């Protein structure tokens, strides 16, 4: 399953500056696991110690918040777009 992951600027340092990554995985958890293997550090930024998604980072699959889908087990299919959107406070 080839998934497109949109990386926000604050996390691009983990991904050698890339804004879009192509990753495989049948669900979000697998996708985060493969991100972690290729770009160590991602899991800690997205998940807390218990493996749950952090509450101040939102992950959208094709524009839908995964908290209203199946959370970290939200299934993914080829061509899906995963967007990582952190809370930002600047004004």
């Amino acid at each position: 399953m080839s998934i497109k992951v949109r990386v926000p600027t604050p996390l691009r340092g983990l991904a050698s500056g890339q804004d879009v990554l192509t990753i495989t995985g049948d669900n979000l958890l697998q996708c985060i696991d493969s991100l972690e293997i290729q770009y160590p550090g991602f899991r800690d930024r997205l998940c807390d110690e218990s493996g749950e998604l952090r509450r101040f980072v939102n992950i959208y699959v094709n524009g839908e918040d995964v908290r209203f889908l199946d959370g970290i087990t939200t299934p993914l299919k080829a061509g899906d777009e995963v967007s990582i959107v952190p809370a930002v406070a600047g004004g």
Partner: protein
Amino acid sequence: MSVNVYIPGPFRSATGNMAKVESEGSTVAEALRTLGNRYPAFKSLVFDLNGGVADHVAVFLNNRDIGTLQGDQTAIGEGDEISIVPAMSGGASGWSEEQILRYSRHIVMPQVGGKGQRKLLNAKVLLIGAGGLGSPTAMYLAAAGVGTIGLVDADVVDLSNLQRQLLHDTNDVGKPKVDSGQERINDLNPEVNVIKHRLYLNSENAMEIISGYDIVVNGCDNFPTRYLVNDTCVFLKKPLVDGSILFFEGQATVYLPGKGCYRCVYPAPPPPGMVPSCAEGGVLGVLPGIVGCIEAIETIKLILGLGESLSGRLLLFDALSMEFRQMKLRRDPQCPVCGDHPTVTELIDYEEFCLGIASPTEAAREAIRIG
């Protein structure tokens, strides 16, 4: 002489729904008569029984009221623009000539018209922060004729602000931002009533300040204030137009009462130090120009009741890829503030909340709810 004549919305049924028509003549009267001959209904709208321009119509030549020139005998040149502005309902009274001219580009649009412009003039909008986002928002709302603009900001202008905060200029360094903001706003539009709140918004003053306004626009620079403004707007049922920026990216949305809030999207703030502020991480100076203008547009749409608001959608802007994307937002029934069984029913200590320490009362309520 060939000239363009701009037809106001209410008169367009007379000109085949055309907003702009070409006409000819050597004076304003001739150009209008040419049109009257082409469109008989237009003739009866614009001319009185004696054949002169009717009293209920104001005519502008290249944005100048012909009343201040030679009336309908004013000579016209090739390519000139004639604008026709009908008197508003209730007669032309209530509008000064300067207002009709200043807001003519709004008034001629049927979606705004005199009624819409009156709504803008009567609107009271509170801007949280007179910085990067607040600057373009304040300037465009002022130019648009939003009658009352409140500015909340405790800071003074710093040289490092001027890379993006266009409300202030070099001579303002050291001056309170609400003062230089008021000056810029009134330079743009002297009829805007600017209310200065030179203070830090907190749990003690937020309800009182925000309750005096129709719409709140967020342009603050920290998480505690974002949660404070959100909760206050939920409690007071005020629409909140939200924007935030960092580096090369911006976010914008609108939270309408009963349709979800900031906490539905971001239930908890990041731990201190995890997400840098603009001061720490930097921000492209133009970025707040884009996001602040989007906030201004959404505010005006809310006031006028026009179009589809960003409510339910999070607009993401990336300046580097020059892309706008949208994420769907929903009201979270579990939201502690606007959910079905709210656990936060009054303002809390937001500094503490953003340090990750739940306030004792909130912790107690949570315990009761779970127990």
